[in-house]
């Protein structure tokens, strides 16, 4: 490995110059020649039979080209690709299953006209009884999809040791039902997609706000019955993804189908309302959890049975439910457990991974249980954690869940560092003082493991250009993470080039034949290592040419920091520019290097959060006074970017702990469908985040990278609920529902604190 000079440096991003000048290119900015705009008429009912659809008036409106319903053509009744075991048709046929499900598609000259036409569409619905919560769904009196025979679409189960039986060995058993509300990712750029078909080559080019161009390519090819080679998917600038721009959606099928069928460019850009109605959501689960502990706080057994309110179709929700199980252990030693997770269908928009994707859910449960157990035992909440954290001598620590073996770091030391930074005794004094002023202070603590990657591959393809610069193509995509800079930093070290000599092209299936994409904090681990490997390959490919220039044998050529020379004679060397000159003169094809890094070894970043909340006794107004993170990022490529990920994730997490919740009425009607009702954290309520790094290389991949995209959001609900409870220790406030919104906090305190 070359001496590190770029890796580890807080370099400002290469991608920023166009973005800060308004020169970015997002899907909504793309104007294809004579493009048609797609607008959808969506279901206003959570569950209904479609009696009739009348589109005559809409069809007649000047500027409208085509209005499609499911009865028009078999293609609209085809199931969405990439969703099993049950997928909705592209346009609702006979029945609608959730508010927001697309029913009619309209193509018009622009959005103004298309939306006029949407107003003219008349759909007659016969509302049906709907299932809007897990409790109802489990009764089984109303099956959403009778062909499945049940509303339960998945069951995940893990046992370790004596499982449930082990509770008998505990001195104290705490039992609690913990709930999490539904949240919505809400990237600032809504989803969007545009496509243009070139009949001469039977080639479809798709501009897609997606986190995975290759998966999108496969789905589109499958749906349209085209070879993948004829579908090119490009992710231009993407305005945030957070998981929800990664799945299969009806709009993808519709836009690509129409573009090919009509031979006319078609574009759909969702608006914010659609982002609330039609984009997949997350987090909604109910856990019936039990923790058995010894008198000294040592964990004996964890028993948890939980239900995920998944909405009307699987979406990607099954993965979320399964990943929840894998996160229930947190960073703790749990010798016995029995876990059963059920994914349950209801009449809501589906769940699919949103930043965290099961990690926050699992940690929420174990962290809340530890707080409950400590309170019951009269033990300090910090102390119970120290007694159960995985110790360095336990590593590698097999969690008891298949393929999850914690491998690095020092969990108790990092947790103690956090406690020192908080200065617990000082805080307790301040807490007592503040109380005299009518201000309640509360401290929340939570620890976590951030499990990242652990499956699949990612690739990098390098091309040495004529002027001695290198272009890197990768299937990983970017929704703001800054890979064009961080991957360039890795490659700059490998090849001994400057950042200005490297161009990173992400998110274009024409750039590299295979790829998986960016999600689950995997890109640095997978594409980062692949980039270095591809660099090594490029160096090998260059050696014969260097040998020729140096009039030596290729086996005698060594490469160091951008220079090729004969072993032992570094004074006479050639560089990349010399090589390209030689290649040009020889009329040779450009040198390339392509490598794929595959690994089934996950990475295990870890850390701990502390938050101090300040609550006005009279108004219950809550403010975050301090937020501290001690965090392991593994090998850090660019500290600016790493901190950006951690801070951004933390603030998002505060949203889902304090303000954000998708609310539905008893008929399944969503009530929070604008930024006025669904409150994202803004600048004033967002605290400053103090990050302290304790970075341990990951032993499981060559560079020691770990995921960092989710560290911020994992403990959010756990740590905030803990802090609010601590502020009300005198009335033994118990919070079993996240988020603790102002309204919920008020109601709970008003009731004397015993339930949320």
């Amino acid at each position: 490995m070359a001496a590190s000079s770029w890796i580890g440096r807080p370099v400002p991003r290469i991608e920023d110059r166009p973005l800060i000048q308004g020169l970015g290119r997002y899907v909504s900015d793309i104007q294809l020649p004579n493009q048609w705009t797609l607008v959808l008429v969506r279901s206003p009912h959570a569950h209904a039979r479609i009696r009739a659809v009348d589109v005559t008036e809409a069809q007649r409106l000047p500027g409208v080209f085509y209005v499609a319903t499911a009865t028009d053509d078999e293609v609209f009744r085809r199931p969405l690709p990439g969703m099993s075991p049950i997928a909705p048709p592209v346009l609702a046929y006979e029945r609608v299953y959730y508010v927001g499900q697309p029913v009619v598609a309209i193509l018009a000259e622009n959005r103004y006209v298309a939306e006029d036409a949407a107003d003219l569409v008349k759909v007659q619905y016969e509302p049906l009884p709907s299932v809007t919560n897990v409790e109802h769904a489990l009764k089984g009196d109303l099956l959403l999809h009778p062909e499945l025979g049940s509303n339960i679409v998945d069951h995940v189960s893990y046992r370790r040791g004596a499982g449930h039986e082990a509770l008998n060995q505990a001195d104290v058993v705490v039992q609690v039902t913990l709930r999490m509300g539904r949240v919505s990712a809400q990237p600032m750029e809504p989803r969007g997609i545009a496509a243009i078909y070139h009949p001469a080559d039977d080639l479809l080019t798709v501009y897609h706000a997606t986190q995975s161009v290759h998966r999108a390519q496969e789905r589109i090819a499958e749906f349209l019955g085209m070879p993948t080679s004829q579908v090119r998917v490009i992710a231009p600038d993407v305005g945030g993804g957070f998981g929800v721009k990664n799945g299969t959606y009806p709009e993808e099928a519709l836009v690509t189908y129409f573009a090919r069928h009509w031979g006319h460019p078609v574009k759909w850009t969702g608006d914010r309302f659609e982002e609330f109605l039609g984009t997949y959501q997350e987090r909604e689960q109910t856990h019936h959890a039990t923790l058995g502990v010894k008198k000294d706080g040592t964990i004996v057994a964890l028993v948890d049975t939980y239900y995920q309110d998944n909405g009307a179709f699987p979406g990607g929700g099954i993965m979320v439910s399964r990943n929840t199980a894998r996160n229930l252990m947190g960073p703790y030693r749990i010798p016995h457990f029995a876990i059963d997770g059920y994914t349950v269908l209801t009449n809501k928009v589906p769940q699919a991974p949103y930043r965290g994707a099961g990690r926050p859910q699992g940690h929420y449960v174990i962290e809340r249980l530890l707080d409950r157990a400590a309170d019951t035992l009269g033990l300090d909440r910090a102390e119970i954690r120290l007694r159960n954290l995985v110790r360095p001598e336990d590593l590698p620590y097999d969690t008891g869940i298949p393929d999850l073996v914690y491998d690095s770091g020092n969990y108790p030391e990092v947790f103690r560092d956090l406690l020192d930074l908080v200065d617990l005794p000082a805080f307790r004094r301040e807490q007592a003082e503040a109380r005299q002023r009518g201000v309640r202070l509360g401290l929340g603590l939570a620890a976590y493991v951030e499990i990242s990657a652990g499956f699949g591959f990612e690739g990098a393809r390098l091309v040495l250009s004529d002027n001695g610069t290198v272009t890197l193509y990768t299937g990983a995509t970017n929704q703001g993470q800054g890979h064009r800079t961080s991957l360039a930093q890795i490659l700059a070290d490998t090849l001994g080039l400057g950042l200005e000599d490297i161009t990173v092209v992400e998110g274009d299936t024409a750039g590299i034949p295979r790829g998986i994409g960016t999600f689950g904090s995997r890109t640095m681990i997978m594409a980062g290592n692949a980039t270095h490997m591809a660099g090594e390959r490029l160096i090998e490919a260059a050696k014969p040419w260097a040998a020729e220039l140096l009039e030596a044998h290729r086996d005698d050529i060594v490469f160091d920091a951008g220079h090729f020379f004969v072993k032992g004679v570094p004074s006479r060397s050639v560089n990349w520019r010399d090589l390209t000159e030689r290649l040009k003169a020889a009329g040779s094809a450009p040198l390339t290097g392509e490598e794929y890094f595959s690994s089934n070894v996950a990475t295990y970043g870890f850390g701990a959060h502390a938050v101090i909340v300040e609550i006005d006794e009279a108004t219950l107004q809550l403010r975050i006074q301090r937020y501290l993170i001690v965090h392991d990022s593994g090998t850090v490529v660019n500290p600016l970017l790493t901190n950006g990920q951690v801070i951004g994730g933390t603030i998002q997490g505060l949203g889902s702990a304090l303000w954000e919740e998708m609310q539905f009425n008893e008929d399944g009607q969503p009530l929070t469908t604008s930024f006025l009702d669904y409150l994202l954290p803004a600048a004033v309520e967002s605290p400053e985040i103090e990050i302290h790094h304790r970075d341990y290389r990951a032993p499981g991949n060559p560079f020691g990278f770990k995921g960092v995209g989710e560290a911020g959001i994992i403990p959010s609900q756990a740590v905030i609920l803990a802090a609010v409870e601590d502020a009300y220790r005198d009335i033994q406030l118990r919070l079993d529902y996240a988020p603790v919104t102002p309204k919920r906090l008020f109601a709970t305190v008003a009731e004397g604190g015993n339930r949320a």
Partner: protein
Amino acid sequence: MIPMTLTVNGQSYQLTVEPRWLLADVLREQLHLTGTHLGCEHGVCGACTVLWDGRPVRSCLTLAVTADGANILTIEGLAAEGILHPVQEAFWQEHALQCGFCTPGFILTAVHLLQENPEPTREEIREALAGNLCRCTGYQHIVNAVQRAAAALSDNHGHAPSGQ
């Protein structure tokens, strides 16, 4: 269709627009200035912010025809001849953007803030940016950037582009 005159980034345009078209759509689709982004179209996120005679307005809530004769600055007009405005430069240096979708709105709002209040505290900056949403950064680096820009602007007082 209504004829109107609009000055955008110093250039005057004679336009004919439908009365119901939003200023944001006219900028984006008729003038192809797509740096003005639409994040919510209901006045909350601030991504569509432009400066109208120097003051921030939400172009998603503004009917284009009401801007007849107005002088509009969009994000594309902020850098003078390839030289970044100090606020842009500071956003870059401080890593104040990730996906960049919210960024034009934040930058223009910050430009206005620094004209009104050249030395804002962190609290004042947060207050001034309260009408803009960012889902990626958690705001901290944005606040850092505005502070940095304030320092830069006061250092080369009188030389900096005014953002007008």
